[in-house]
C-alpha cells in the first residue's frame, strides 16, 4: 500500500477528533492476519493454564448435576419458604450477563455505533455461553427434570397442555428464543469470517470444517446485499428480544404477589441491570484478552472507555431503581411491602443488601473520572465487583424477599449447600471452557465487520482508493 501517509483526509478540529476505531492505521489484511494468528498460531501456555482448571470445573459441574439429578433438589440449600435459592439467582445472573452480547450486536448496530465491531463477536459468544450456563438452572432446578418436556406444548395421550398464564412458560419461550436467536445471530455473523479461515486454512480438516460451516460463502456482493438485510432484521428483532427477555425474567417475580417481588418497575430495572452486568463481564473478559491476544489496536482504550461509560449509565439507572423501589414500598402503604424492604436494609441479610448497593450504585460512580476509566487494573477489578454486586441484587430479590413473607410463622433463613457453591463454580468452568475453545478455534473479532469500518474499506475515503475530490 502506497497510500499510507501521502493522502490526508480532511481532519476535524483536534478537540472533536475521535480516536480511530482501529489504531495505528492498520490495513484490512493486517486485521485478518492478526485475528488469524490467535487461531493458527501455536497454542499459548496461558491458554492451557486457563483451560485446564476451567475444564476441571466443568467436570465438577457435570458431576454435581448428576448428583443433584440422582438425589433431588435437597442437595441444594433451598428450603421452605426459600423455595428458590442459588438456582434461580444464578439463572438470572447468568442470563443478565448474557444480555451484553446481543445488546452490543443489535442495539449498537441499530444505533450505528461502529465501535461495536471490535467487541461484538466475543460478547455474542459470551452471551451464548452465559445463556447456556443460565439455561442449566431452570432446566435442572426442577424436582423432576426428566419431565421438563411438560413445559413444551407437545400433544400426548394425556391430553394436557402447558399453562400459559405462568410466567415460567413465558420464560421458556423467552429464554429458548433468546438462545436460538443469539446463536443464529452469532452464526450468521460468523459465516463470512469462517470463509476467511477456510481460505487461509492449511490442513485438510480445517479446510473441511471451516468450509462446511462457511456454507460456501464467496463474498459475492449479491450475497452481501441479502446478508446485510438479514443482519439488519436480526438486529432489529434482537433489540426488542433482548429487552423482552429480561423483562420476562423479571415478570417471574413481578407477576407473583410476594412483597418485594410484586412491583411494576422490575422490567426496566432488570434490563438495565442486565446490561450493567453484561458490560461488566465483557470488560472482565476483554481486558486480559486484548493483552494476551495482542489486539490492543482493535480493542482500543476508546472501547474500554465507552464500555465504562455504559456501565456508569446503567449502574446509575439501577441505583435509581433501588431507590424508587424503596419509595414505592413506602408509598404503597402496605405494611407487608414496607416490611419487606426494611428487612432488606436491616434484616438478617442486610449485608447482602449493602454489598449490592456498594457494588452496583456507589462503585460505578468512579467511572465519572476519565483517569479511572483509563486505568485498566481499576476497570478490571471494578468490572468483577459489578458482577458480584449484580449477583447480590438477585440474591436480595430472591432470598431476602422469600425468607420473610406474609405470615411470620413461615419465616426462615437460607444457607447454600456445598453443592450450590460447587455448581455455581462449575458453571464458570463451563463458561470459560467454551469461551477458551471459542477464542482458540473461531475468530474472536468480527473480521469482516472490522474491515468494513476501516478507512481502507471506504471507497470514498482516500485510503479506500478514492481519488481526491471525486465526490
Amino acid at each position: 500500500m502506497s497510500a499510507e501517509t501521502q493522502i490526508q483526509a480532511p481532519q476535524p478540529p483536534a478537540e472533536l477528533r475521535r480516536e480511530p476505531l482501529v489504531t495505528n492505521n492498520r490495513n484490512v489484511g493486517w486485521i485478518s492476519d492478526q485475528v488469524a494468528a490467535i487461531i493458527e498460531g501455536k497454542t499459548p501456555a496461558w491458554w492451557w493454564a486457563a483451560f485446564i482448571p476451567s475444564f476441571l470445573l466443568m467436570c465438577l459441574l457435570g458431576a454435581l448435576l448428576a448428583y443433584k439429578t440422582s438425589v433431588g433438589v435437597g442437595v441444594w440449600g433451598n428450603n421452605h419458604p426459600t423455595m428458590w435459592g442459588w438456582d434461580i439467582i444464578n439463572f438470572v445472573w447468568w442470563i443478565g450477563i448474557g444480555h451484553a452480547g446481543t445488546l452490543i450486536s443489535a442495539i449498537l448496530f441499530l444505533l450505528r455505533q461502529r465501535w461495536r465491531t471490535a467487541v461484538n463477536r466475543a460478547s455474542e459468544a459470551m452471551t451464548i455461553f452465559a445463556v447456556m450456563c443460565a439455561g442449566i438452572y431452570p432446566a435442572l432446578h426442577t424436582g423432576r427434570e426428566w419431565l421438563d418436556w411438560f413445559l413444551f406444548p407437545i400433544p400426548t395421550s394425556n391430553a394436557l397442555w402447558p399453562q400459559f398464564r405462568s410466567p415460567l412458560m413465558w420464560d421458556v419461550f423467552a429464554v429458548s428464543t433468546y438462545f436460538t436467536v443469539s446463536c443464529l445471530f452469532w452464526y450468521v455473523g460468523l459465516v463470512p469470517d469462517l470463509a476467511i479461515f477456510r481460505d487461509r486454512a492449511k490442513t485438510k480438516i480445517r479446510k473441511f470444517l471451516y468450509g462446511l460451516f462457511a456454507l460456501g460463502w464467496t463474498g459475492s456482493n449479491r450475497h452481501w446485499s441479502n446478508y446485510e438485510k438479514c443482519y439488519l432484521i436480526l438486529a432489529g428483532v434482537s433489540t426488542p428480544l433482548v429487552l423482552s427477555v429480561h423483562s420476562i425474567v423479571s415478570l417471574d417475580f413481578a407477576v407473583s404477589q410476594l412483597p418485594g417481588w410484586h412491583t411494576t418497575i422490575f422490567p426496566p430495572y432488570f434490563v438495565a441491570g442486565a446490561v450493567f452486568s453484561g458490560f461488566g463481564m465483557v470488560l472482565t473478559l476483554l481486558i486480559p484478552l486484548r493483552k494476551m491476544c495482542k489486539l490492543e489496536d482493535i480493542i482500543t482504550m476508546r472501547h474500554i472507555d465507552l464500555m465504562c461509560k455504559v456501565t456508569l449509565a446503567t449502574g446509575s439507572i439501577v441505583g435509581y431503581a433501588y431507590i424508587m423501589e424503596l419509595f414505592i414500598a413506602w408509598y404503597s402503604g402496605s405494611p407487608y411491602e414496607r416490611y419487606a424492604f426494611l428487612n432488606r436494609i436491616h434484616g438478617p441479610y442486610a449485608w447482602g443488601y449493602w454489598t449490592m448497593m456498594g457494588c452496583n450504585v456507589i462503585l460505578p460512580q468512579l467511572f465519572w473520572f476519565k483517569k479511572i476509566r483509563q486505568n485498566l487494573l481499576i476497570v478490571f477489578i471494578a468490572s468483577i465487583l459489578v458482577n458480584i454486586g449484580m449477583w447480590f441484587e438477585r440474591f436480595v430479590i430472591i432470598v431476602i424477599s422469600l425468607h420473610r413473607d406474609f405470615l411470620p410463622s413461615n419465616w426462615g433463613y437460607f444457607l447454600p449447600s456445598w453443592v450450590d457453591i460447587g455448581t455455581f463454580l462449575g458453571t464458570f468452568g463451563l463458561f470459560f471452557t467454551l469461551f477458551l475453545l471459542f477464542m482458540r478455534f473461531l475468530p474472536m473479532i468480527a473480521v469482516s465487520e472490522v474491515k468494513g469500518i476501516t478507512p481502507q474499506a471506504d471507497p470514498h475515503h482516500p485510503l479506500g482508493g478514492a481519488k481526491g475530490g471525486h465526490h
Partner: protein
Amino acid sequence: MSAIFPKWTNRLPLMIVVGVLLGGAGVTAGVWYYFTPKYTRVGYQPIQPVPFSHATHVDQMGIDCRYCHSAVEKSWYSNIPAASLCMNCHNQVLKDDPRLALVRESAQSGKPIPWVQVHKTPEFVYFNHAVHVNRGVSCYECHGEINKMEEVHHAKPLSMAFCLDCHRDPAAKLRPPDKITDLDWRPESPEKQRAMGEKFVHDWKVQSLESCSACHR
C-alpha cells in the same frame, strides 16, 4: 478446495432439508402410533392359566357379568371371581375336564389361580368401577365386546384422552341402567343416543368432570 467439496455436495442441503422433514414426520407419526396406549395397550392378550372363554359363558350361556365380578357395583375394584365360585357350576358341569384342573385344585387348596392382569390403570389414577356402572356407563365402553372374546384382550386404549372423551360428553355414552351389562346393546341411532344421553345427564345430574380431582388424589 474442490477436493474437499465435490460438486454433488451442492445438492446436499436440499436433500438434508427434505430428509429431515420426511424423517421428522415419520418419527412423529411413529411415536404417535407406536408409543401411545392405542398401540401399547390395545390388543394385549396374554395367555391365561385357565382358558376361560367369556364368549362361551356370557354370549352363549347368558351369565351376567355381575355373577362373577360381584364387587363391581360396590367397589372401585372389579374382582376376579374366587375359584369356589366357578365350582358352583363346575362341580356339576365338566366335572373332570382337564382344562379346569387348576380351578379345582385352587378351590381345594386355597391357592389362587394366577390370572394375568390385562387392564391396569397407573397407580396415580383412581378409577372407580362402582360409580360408573351404577350411573349408566356400560362395561362395554372400556372393555369392548368382552362377551365375544375367547380370551380377553385389551380393547380400548384407556389413556387419559380416552377417559376424557367420555367425561367431556357423557351423553354420548350413557345407557339405560338395565343395559349396563348387556354388551350387545347398541343405541338405535346416534340421534336417539344423544337424546337419551342428554335426558340422563339432566335427570341424574351427571357431571362432566374434567378436573384433576375426579381421577387423581
